[in-house]
């Protein structure tokens, strides 16, 4: 059910389906730059054996993740398309395991997938397509699209499968809570550095007010970034999802 999983540098951070929904908390975010370092899981109090077992799995630093990627592309001759397809498929599988359609209210369950401007966004496009095949009803918001065949092809695949693309981001978290049962954060990945520019700054701000669960692809977007200041995406601590820093908290992850 829940264990930290990292395959070829791709990972998924999801809330377990048995966790309660979190009420929005308006606390300021203390994002720690040490999030990327090897995680020391808090001991004691967390009796969940699966969380404790995750201590044996290594978490990658940003440099390590980039090095893994480079080796896969250069030495193993994997293509971006290949790995992106496997990543997106695995993410959709993990999400479907964490939030099976029977556990959600609508039939088909509605999911909002927010895709960022890079490879994490590409993973999100693949994920959305597989979620559709698994019986969900995804909608995509993809405001900044790289003009490269890889991404335009992925968009075409989604469009041809009747997955709608929103023209704008719902401005209020409540609107998202009303329309969608789950949000997939495919905004920024492990290679993200620097400032969060618009429109993503605003998007992260809206997402921080959600009550529906968020599944982040690879890393919660905005984590490790000091200046966001507006509530990074949820982290799991003390058995509950919180809107605060990830520093020192353990993460619950689903394996595909």
């Amino acid at each position, binding site marked *: 059910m829940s264990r930290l999983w990292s395959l070829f540098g791709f990972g998924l951070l999801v809330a377990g389906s048995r966790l309660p929904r979190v009420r929005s908390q308006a606390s300021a975010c203390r994002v720690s730059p040490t999030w990327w370092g090897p995680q020391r899981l808090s001991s004691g109090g967390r009796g969940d054996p699966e969380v404790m077992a995750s201590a044996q799995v290594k978490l990658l630093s940003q440099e390590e993740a980039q090095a893994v990627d480079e080796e896969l592309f250069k030495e193993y*001759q*994997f293509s971006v398309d290949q790995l992106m397809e496997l990543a997106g498929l695995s993410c*959709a599988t993990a999400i479907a395991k964490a939030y099976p359609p029977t556990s959600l209210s609508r*039939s088909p369950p509605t999911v909002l997938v927010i895709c960022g401007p890079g490879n994490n966004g590409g993973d999100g496009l693949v994920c959305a397509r597989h979620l559709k*095949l698994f019986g969900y*009803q995804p909608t995509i918001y993809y405001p900044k699209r790289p003009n490269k065949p890889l991404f335009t092809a992925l968009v075409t*695949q989604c469009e041809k499968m009747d997955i709608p693309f929103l023209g704008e981001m719902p401005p209020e978290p409540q609107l998202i809570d009303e329309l969608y049962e789950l949000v997939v954060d495919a905004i920024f990945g492990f290679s993200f550095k620097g400032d969060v520019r618009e429109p993503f700054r605003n998007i992260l701000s809206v997402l921080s007010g959600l009550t529906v669960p968020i599944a982040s692809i690879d890393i919660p977007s905005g984590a490790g970034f000091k200046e966001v200041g507006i509530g990074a995406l949820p982290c799991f601590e003390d058995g509950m999802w919180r809107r605060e820093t990830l520093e020192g908290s353990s993460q619950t992850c689903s394996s595909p």
Partner: protein
Amino acid sequence: MIGAASRDPAEAPEDRRFLSTEEAAALERELLEDYRFGRQQLVELCGHASAVAVTKVFPLPALSRKQKTVLVVCGPEQNGAVGLVCARHLRVFEYEPTIFYPTRSLDPLHQDLTTQCEKMDIPFLSYLPTEVQLINDAYGLVVDAVLGPGVEPREVGGPCTRALATLKLLSIPLVSLDIPSGWDAETGEDSEDGLRPDVLVSLGAPKRCAGRFSGRHHFVAGRFVPDDVRRKFALRLPGYTGTDCVAAL
């Protein structure tokens, strides 16, 4: 909009379960041209799903060390590429694949897939013994990824043809990808080297010759056919459960 996932009552009933060779090619063309899928994407999904199908019939915990060893025989065309992907995923799933890939394609996709297998320490045999007992003794099962629909045995060269002749005599289980190599994809009549696989893994959708398959298990593998395409080809596929990428027929 939301929740209307049920079948459209005006839709004609679909009872076609097999595709002809032309239809299979047309379906693939539609995916590649209209849907802009890349060949690499589809080959990866098919190969991954084929490996998953193997795990369903031969689950790892039930296997002895010897039974985990899998010989994957790959031809030079797309079927062989799917075999290379399948071998790699079997390795990731902790089986012990070995590949026999005598006639190597020069196209970049095949070359990259070969590199990926080599880098994952999957051995490539330089020749296939003709003594059937040696293969029966060394491997727990064989995956036939030699010929896909529309590829004539004579097109793939001597080594592949000889390999098929050997595979036909094996007593260990045989899993064929898409069609049993050597069968006529339309009629299912087997040529001189036609195989009798225990497991058939149809990729995307079953081909006509699958109607004559009489082995133990038949799966459809590769969950990527969009609903619209399925309807366009008036195809009825078995229902996939949950997140499965294989479905038993």
